[in-house]
Every structure is written in structure tokens, then in C-alpha cells.
């Protein structure tokens, strides 16, 4: 049976890198005695895949991994057992069934929502006004930028990859393209704005939290055609 686990990563856990988070969850499965399936071969490994790696230093309320389990244990007891063995900062938010035909989470990722605020001590005089200005900047139809990639540089229209950007109180909430198609980091969205003002972003000026990871609704054509990964397959089934 395939299941999708949604978890949060808060506090000091933000300093734990993606590979270590993967190792961490492998051990969670053993401690919680989850009947996870193993691959064949001489050194079998757990069948587990993560949706979208999260950068070090970013907290999250919506991380995803898919696993395959042997039996049909009630999902709420599975969740309770996992949460009893979590380290500080990690918490399983939900576990959902997936149909056997479900695509792995990684291939479904299309966008993610982030919430950004100024780190205490780095605020400009008027943080609300600053966020409003950022929102207005993204009202433009087209924002041409050059993005550094492994192979060199490429030209992008950032406006088409930032699906939503709203100033909220002292922060800003944004939905941006994520995953294998076009992976945009929230810092890149900030940098384009700073560049337009002829300024440079201070490296530690923002606290960033990923709020949710989305997949595209099949055939959806609304202005924001996304659903959280946990709800996506439920739509299907």
C-alpha cells in the first residue's frame, strides 16, 4: 500500500540537510516499527521517496514523503507511533492513502508556498511598506532575469513562475514554481526585486518558511491550478 506522509520541520531542525532528513526518516520507520516495504537485493533499502528537497536554514509546515507499507494498519495509529519517536522540530501532520497507480510525489511537485519575514535586527524602517512594494513589483507582466544553473546561465521570465505574491502584515506569502520543471528558490524572487532597486540582499536578512508543496490539478485551468500534495491523489481516487 502506498501512503503519503506530510511533516513539518521547525526550530533547530532547519539546520538538518536533506540527506540527513532522509536518513532520519529511515530510522523513524524502524523505531516506530512501521511495516515499510524493502527493495530486493543483497542490501535491501526502504521504499521511500521525498517530494522536494528543502534548503538548510528554511523551516517548513508542509514536507512530503511517500512510502510503501505491507499492511492496512489504520493511518492514525501509524501517525501516532511515528510522532512518539520524533526528534524535536519534526512532526507528522498527516498520512494519506494513495492509489497503487499514484505517481511518486517527486514527479508531481509543481509549486510551493513560502512565507518570508525579516529576521529580527534586519528590518527596514517600514517592513509593511517594503512588502507592499515587493507585491507591486510582481504585478508586472514580465520580469526578465538571468538564473545561474549548473550548465551556466539562462534567461527566465520570473513573472510567469511566480504564481502568487501577497504582502501579509510584516511578511509576504508567495507561490512559486518548484520541482523538476522549473525550480525557483524564494531568494531568487527577492533578488530580482533588490536588483530592480539597484541594491543587494543581505545574506541573512530573511526568515523563510515553506508552507505547502503543491501538485498541478489535472486539467485544472483556474488562476491557481494547484492542490497540496496530500489532497492531489485523493482527487484522483
Amino acid at each position, binding site marked *: 500500500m502506498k501512503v503519503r506522509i506530510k511533516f513539518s520541520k521547525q*526550530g*533547530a531542525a532547519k*539546520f538538518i540537510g536533506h540527506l540527513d532528513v532522509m536518513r532520519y526518516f529511515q530510522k523513524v520507520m524502524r*523505531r516506530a516499527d512501521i511495516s515499510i516495504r*524493502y527493495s530486493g537485493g*543483497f542490501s535491501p533499502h526502504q521504499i521511500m521517496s521525498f517530494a522536494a528537497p528543502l534548503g538548510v536554514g528554511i523551516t517548513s509546515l508542509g514536507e512530503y514523503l511517500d512510502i510503501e507499507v505491507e499492511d492496512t494498519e489504520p493511518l492514525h495509529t501509524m501517525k501516532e507511533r511515528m510522532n512518539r519517536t520524533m*526528534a524535536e522540530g519534526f512532526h507528522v501532520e498527516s498520512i494519506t492513502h494513495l492509489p497503487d497507480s499514484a505517481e511518486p510525489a517527486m514527479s508531481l511537485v509543481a509549486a510551493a508556498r513560502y512565507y518570508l519575514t525579516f*529576521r529580527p535586527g534586519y528590518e527596514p524602517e517600514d517592513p509593511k511598506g517594503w512588502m507592499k512594494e515587493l507585491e507591486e513589483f510582481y504585478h508586472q507582466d514580465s520580469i526578465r532575469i538571468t538564473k545561474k544553473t549548473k550548465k551556466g546561465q539562462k534567461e527566465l521570465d520570473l513573472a510567469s513562475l511566480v504564481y502568487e505574491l501577497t504582502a501579509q502584515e510584516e511578511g509576504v506569502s508567495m507561490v512559486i514554481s518548484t520541482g523538476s520543471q522549473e525550480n525557483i528558490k524564494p531568494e531568487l524572487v527577492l533578488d530580482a526585486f533588490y536588483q530592480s532597486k539597484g541594491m543587494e540582499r543581505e*545574506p541573512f536578512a530573511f526568515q523563510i518558511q515553506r508552507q505547502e508543496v503543491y501538485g498541478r490539478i489535472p486539467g485544472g485551468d483556474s488562476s491557481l491550478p494547484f492542490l497540496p500534495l496530500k489532497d492531489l491523489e485523493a482527487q484522483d481516487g
Partner: protein
Amino acid sequence: MRKLALPDEILLSIQQPARYIGGEVNMCVKDPKDVAIRFAMCFPDVYDIGMSHLGIQILYDMFNRREDIYCERVYSPWTDLDQLMREKNLPLFALESQDPIRDFDFLGITLQYEMSYTNILQILDLSQIPLHAADRGEDVPIVIGGGPCAYNPEPLADFFDLFYIGEGETVYYELMDRYKENKRANGTRLQFLELAARIPGIYVPAFYDVTYHEDGTIQSFRPNRPCARERITKELVMELDQVNYIEKPLVPFIKVTQDRVVLEIMRGCIRGCRFCQAGNVYRPMRERGLDYLKEYAARLLTSTGHEEISLSSLSSSDYTQLEELITFLIETFKGKGVNISLPSLRIDAFSLDVMSKVQDVKKSSLTFAPEAGSQRLRNVINKGLTEEDILTGAASAFHGGWNRVKLYFMLGLPTETREDMEGIALLSEKVAETYYDEIPKEQRRGKVQVVASSSFFVPKPFTPFQWARMNTKEEFIEKANLVRQKFREMLNYKSLKYNWHEAELTVLEGVMARGDRRVGAVIEEAYRNGALFDSWSEYFQESIWMEAFKTCGVSMDFYTTRERSLEEIFPWDFIDAGVSKEFLKQEWQKALKGEVTPNCRTQCAGCGARKFKGGVCFEGKN
């Protein structure tokens, strides 16, 4: 959420910030306000190394069982953070509460290897604790050392308030009780040390005076107050099944050196290799019971979620119920995706059979530790492994599908001749020949690979070789070159590979190992000039050390190459490690004659450890 000692700006600009945040699975959480004693337990090396250490996990578990003690951890900040902490004057902190170490009652530092000594000074310095015990005031933690290098604590005498000699499970609680009583009675630091000195196994260096002969050797070593004992007898646990092992080992987030459950099956060793300090100071050999180990194996795998379990001991093949234990581990855990990692076992039908069950034969290699290249020299060091053992073992392994062999040797052993050194290449060649003789061409999977490595021999206290002359750096390098040359002459040269360790580090290790109080000044001088992480070859700077010896007027040769007389008083003679000096002398003389001593189970050699009234001495086979 716990507060963190370091701001995000620092944590996000250094390597592996997870080394400094604590919060690992099974971390002990207490409110420091609820405890009487705060104990910071330190492994003076980077987190990745320190977290792999079994002893610290045992003590962490032991201390935290007591409600009135909160034991936390601290490791050496890596060089990147070290620099930032100095620039910003940030005090070193414990991982659990993230509070500064200087606010603790105790700082316990484990002494695992000599080349960590500058890191001890780093820990004190970054904690803002005066380096010298003599300069510490009432509100500074008591600095305590323990572990294998505490069997010669003298080079560190100035930096520690006290040392704990022997195994930690026995008198730490008593020491903590004395501390509480003294605190309640508003006693001073000195008064506490006087109370501590009365506890068996506790050594307070300030309570002893040393005088020297003109030639630099020790004239006298005496207590300078009534509370200090003439001799300190090591502490040890006689019934290992009656002490608790770890219930819930810490599970680090980052990948550390030892990322697995470690099951300690026994302590001590029956073999009596004359170069081996552990084999002598941990006598008598004591085993844990099979039921005890089975129970803990299951409990530890469950509480950690580790995917691998390994056994720890000095010589697992001598564990009486090894077959039952390994069979149990394979039957119980192999099907659950748990790897079973076997320690170096004596190669025989049984070990090859279990190894083929738990390892991928094609990917794994076979390890032998002949230590010396000739039978003559193996007799000198009392290593009971013959050429026949090795070649027969290798032949069965080759038939079992293995084609990679590792061989470990030492260079610079006492009485070593050119033939002994060349024997390293010759033995390696014979192992390769065995493969080509035993395995028909059509059944071979490529060439055999024989990798021989040699380290350089360091004479250690409490071994029969404590009187031995150590080689100079130049001699070591010359010897390694001679062996390398011999390898080139071998017919199967292309199947052989020869590696050797760095000589510079070994010589320094030799000074620390048999050093006295005068060496402390050199460590401090080297540290002040930038020596740190000396056991990491990329950070070791020989020139700093050479300069420090010169500045302090201390001769390295005095500690390394000097011939010692049988009458000499050694800096560590005040410790009673069980094995008597008389026995070690006898063994030294037998070594020089190439005579072997049978192992403890074959015949008691009268080493002195029998007085502890347990272990192998009373197995009733003598």
C-alpha cells in the same frame, strides 16, 4: 523550542551546523534548575568522531539515570567555528541546554588518544576556563579526565583537577555524592579535591610532588598531603552483567563514523600481545552473558532505529558464546533489514560461514593482523598468529569467493631486523600465491588484491615494551622504504599494495605516551602557536611542535629513543593497573629472547590481575 547558543548567521555559515544544535533522538532533557549537579561530558574531537564513542554514551546514560545530575555533551568545534568563536568571544556551550560550559559543576574530558591533547586546551580555552588547574577559582567547573590515556596522565597533570583511573561505572556516583556534600557544607574547591582524593581510582595531580635526577629521570614521586594515596588502583567492573548498558543511545542527525548499534560483548583480552596497552590495562578479561546481550541487542535496535549492529571487544573470537550470539543476531534481525557488521574475527570455517551470510563476499575483504613479518618477531611480540594460520585461512576464504585480503603490520618493533621487515612483503606475496595456487584459472574472478599496511610502533605504558627504545622519524621512513622496495621485487607485485602511516605524528605520539609533567609545557606552547586537531593529517603542523620543544627546552629523544633501565621510576608507576611491574619486566625479558607466553585460558601467567577476583582468572580452566 530550545534556544540555541549560536545565532543563525553563524550556524548558516559553517560546515555541518547540525554538529552544534543538539536535539538528537534520545537526547536527555532536564531542567537544569531541577538538578544539583551539571556535568559536561566532552570528547575532545569533532562531533562526528565523538558521537561514535561508546564510552561516552555509557557514561551519559549512567549519569542521567540520577535525577540530581544533568549530564550534557560537548565536542571540539571544527576549525571554522573555532575561529568565529574566538573572533566574537563566544563561550563554548553544551549541546543539550546550549548553556556555557563555564557554568557547569564538572567538565569531564575523555582521553582516547594522545594526539587530542591540544584539543583539550581548545575546549578549556573556548569555555573560558583557565588552562592550569592551579589558576582556577571557586566558580569554575572541576575538570576531570578519564579513559585509556589516563593510564599516563602526567603530560596533562597541569590542566586537570583530577583524573579517574579505570572504568567509569564504579565510583562516579560516589564522587558526585562527595561533591554535593561539600557544596552543601559550603566547602571550597580544595576541600572537594581532598575528599575526592580519598576515593579509590581518583588521582589529584596537585597532591603529588615529583623530583628528578640530574639525567632527567624521576627521583621521587610522592603525595604531598595525607588524603592522597601512595598508589592509585584502577577501577573496574567485575560483573559486567550487573551494570546497566546503554538503554537509548543518542542517534545523531548527521552521518558519524560509527552510525550503528554497538554491543560491547566483553572487556579485556586473554592474548597478551606485548605491544598492546588495552590488552594489559583492561585485564582480567570479563565477558557479558549471552542473555544480557540478546536483550540489549533488541532494545538498542528498537530505541535507535539503526540499520546496523556491530560487536565491540578486543578479540571477539575469544568470546565463549560467539557462535550462539552471532547466530541469534542473524536469525533475529537479518530479515528485518538490519545489517550485521562483524568485527575482525579469527578466520576459520565458522567465521567464513557467518561472514558469507552477512556480507557481500564480492565486495568485502578479509583482514589479518600478523603485526610482524616473521615468526621470530611475532614470538617477540607474543602475537599468536602463525603463517600457517594465515595461509590456511586465506585459502578457505579464496574458495569461499573472497579475493581481497588486508594485512596489518607494525614497523619499529623491538629487536626488528631486516629479515623481519622484508617478511612483510614475503608474507603478502605468499598470500597472493595461495590464491593462484588454490583457485584454478577458470574459477578466478580477476586478480587477488592483497593490501598490506604498516603503522609505526609506539611503546606504551603498562606494556612489556614500556622499556623499549622507539625509532626516530628517519628510521621509520627508512624502514618503510625498505619494505616498499622489497614489495617491488615480488613476482606478484601487481596483486600487492603497500601503505604506511605518517611517521611525524607517531614520534609525537611516542612523546605524549611516555611523557612526564614537563611535556605539559610543550603541549601548551604548541597549542598557543596554533596546533589543533593534530590527529587530522590536514591540520597537523610538525614545525609548530618542533619549535615548541625547542622553546620549552624539552628533548623529544629523552622520551622516545632513550634506552630505559629496568630500575627507572616511570611517570605512571604510581598507578596500579593490575598487571605488576614485575610481570611486565619478565615479559620484556622473555620478549628479548623470543619466548612466548600462553594466553590466559591456556595457562595463567601470573600478571597480577587475579587480585581483582573475577573474569577469566576464575573461569576454572587454569
